[in-house]
């Protein structure tokens, strides 16, 4: 018996057509299942069906110790894996009131900004791919592979780095980490104009994204969007500015806010954010404080009874970690307020009334990571 998803949309009038932009679809960047009700090419109704990559990370964290559950979060939003781990380590450090050495804070911030760069580059490549331009995909991976090489040298793995540890970072940075990051920044500053020439200036790309998928400021607030999606609609919600953590209080960068709220605004916000990330890296790379890279936390981590909260700015928005502890060595309850889950809610008001081709452009501009939605 095939597991049948009975259609919650009733095919009312006979000229409406139900189609699944289903779990296996090139434009959903993962296993998001959208059921569309179409009138010709116009989308009349849209319903997301989730859970195709729901692994129950929150339930699993309840049976794992504090040191173990951190590294599950890098499988949630795998493009900002380091930032997810950083959030969990910050929550645990807040609970234990341990003081993280300065060197660890700067290294963590550097790695977070490099992760944001790599994530935006991959987003830029796949946005071009979604709209039919294949060459941006190869341009995007040129600098991204350099960043992954830097990650691999220091942390041992490319994507799910598991570099953060409660109390600091797992080991010190590689001797020629500074040289390689400077070389990367120099090369990427020279090549960033190619990003504009390939996509931003392209009239086809502009006509596909300007004025498409409009999200008003009130809608973005009502749907609690965050990250570039909200900043493109005029909301200033950058966690690195609002409540800075680690080394963000000592760097100066400006928060990119656009007001048009359409796909092109989200595209421009992310491109500018890449430049801001490079500014942050340049400010930090030359004066990494010396000293310990981590404070040793002996024995089993046991957080005192109570609730703890920490929010960070991942590449897609605000990740909030709510941790309820009952004093044992395992968290009693963990809730991850992930940015993609609420940004997904914005998909429906943006794409109703538009065409299917525009839905693909809107999903590319939303930059969704599906395991972040399903957890």
């Amino acid at each position, binding site marked *: 018996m*095939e*597991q049948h998803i009975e259609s919650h949309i009733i095919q009312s009038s006979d000229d409406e057509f139900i189609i699944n932009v*289903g*779990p*296996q*679809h*090139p434009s959903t960047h*993962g*296993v998001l299942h959208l059921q569309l009700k179409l009138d010709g090419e116009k989308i009349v109704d849209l319903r997301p069906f989730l*859970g*195709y*990559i*729901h*692994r*129950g990370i929150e*339930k*699993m964290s309840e*049976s*794992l110790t504090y040191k173990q559950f951190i*590294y*599950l979060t890098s*499988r949630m939003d*795998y*493009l900002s894996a380091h930032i997810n781990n950083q959030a969990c380590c910050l929550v645990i450090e807040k609970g234990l009131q341990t003081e993280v050495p300065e060197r660890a804070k700067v290294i963590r911030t550097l790695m977070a900004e490099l992760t944001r760069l790599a994530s935006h580059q*991959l987003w830029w490549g*796949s946005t071009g791919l979604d709209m039919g331009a294949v060459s941006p*995909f*190869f341009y995007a*991976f*040129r600098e*991204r*592979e350099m960043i*992954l090489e830097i990650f691999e040298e220091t942390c041992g793995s*490319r*994507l*799910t780095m598991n570099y953060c540890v409660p109390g600091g970072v797992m080991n010190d940075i590689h001797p020629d980490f500074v040289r390689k990051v400077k070389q990367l920044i120099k090369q990427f500053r020279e090549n960033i104009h190619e990003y504009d020439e390939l996509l931003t200036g392209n009239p086809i790309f502009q006509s596909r994204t300007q004025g498409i998928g409009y999200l008003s400021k009130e809608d973005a607030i009502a749907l609690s969007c965050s990250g570039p999606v909200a900043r493109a609609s005029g909301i200033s919600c950058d966690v690195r500015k609002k409540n800075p953590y680690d080394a963000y209080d000592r760097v100066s960068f400006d928060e990119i806010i656009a007001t048009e709220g359409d796909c092109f605004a989200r595209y421009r916000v992310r491109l500018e954010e890449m430049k801001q990330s490079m500014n942050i890296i340049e400010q930090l790379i030359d004066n990494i404080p010396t000293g310990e890279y981590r404070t040793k936390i002996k024995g089993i981590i046991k957080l005192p009874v109570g609730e703890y909260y920490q929010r960070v700015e991942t590449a897609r928005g605000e990740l909030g970690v709510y941790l309820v502890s009952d004093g044992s060595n395992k968290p009693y309850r963990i809730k991850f307020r992930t940015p993609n889950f609420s940004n997904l809610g914005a998909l429906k008001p943006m794409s109703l009334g538009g065409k299917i081709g525009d839905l693909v452009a809107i999903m590319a501009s939303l930059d969704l990571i*599906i*395991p972040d939605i399903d957890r």
Partner: protein
Amino acid sequence: MDVIQKQFDDFPGEVYQDKSGHSSIIITQIDRFANWARSNSLWPLIFGTSCCAIEMMSAASAKYDWSRFGFEVARASPRQADLIIVAGTITLKMAPVLKRLYDQMPEPKYVIAMGACNITGGPFMLHSYSVVNGIDKIVPVDVYIPGCPPRPEALLHGMIKLQEKIKNTKAYVIEKPKK
């Protein structure tokens, strides 16, 4: 007319040419010839569920470049794919979808289980209630690639192993399809 044998290292047959190099004779077996063609043009299905898909994209990008081995044509529909790289965790809700996609692929079809999640459930093996511990319970798997996520070279290594596996199977098995 005496004939000299020309050497092609990758070509699955003997090639004989006369002095002037015009007329040439090729002696080969259908099996070797078909497997040589099939293994060098494996079209993967676009099927990435989570983190392993990003490493698959890195393998498809310029640095690791799996088009050197003939894989770069990634098809969106199973009807045109002959290889499904299961990249990412398969949960219980995704299992019927994977089985359906596998059934809808034309023969001859091959499966690569990429990543620890597909081999044994990976990091989600013990405490998760919704992860399939190993996709070989659902679909017959040809090559397993461990890693979380495996490096692009590991993926390429796995695919080359699959090519070798194809090269020494019988290309045409004319037998009754078992019900």
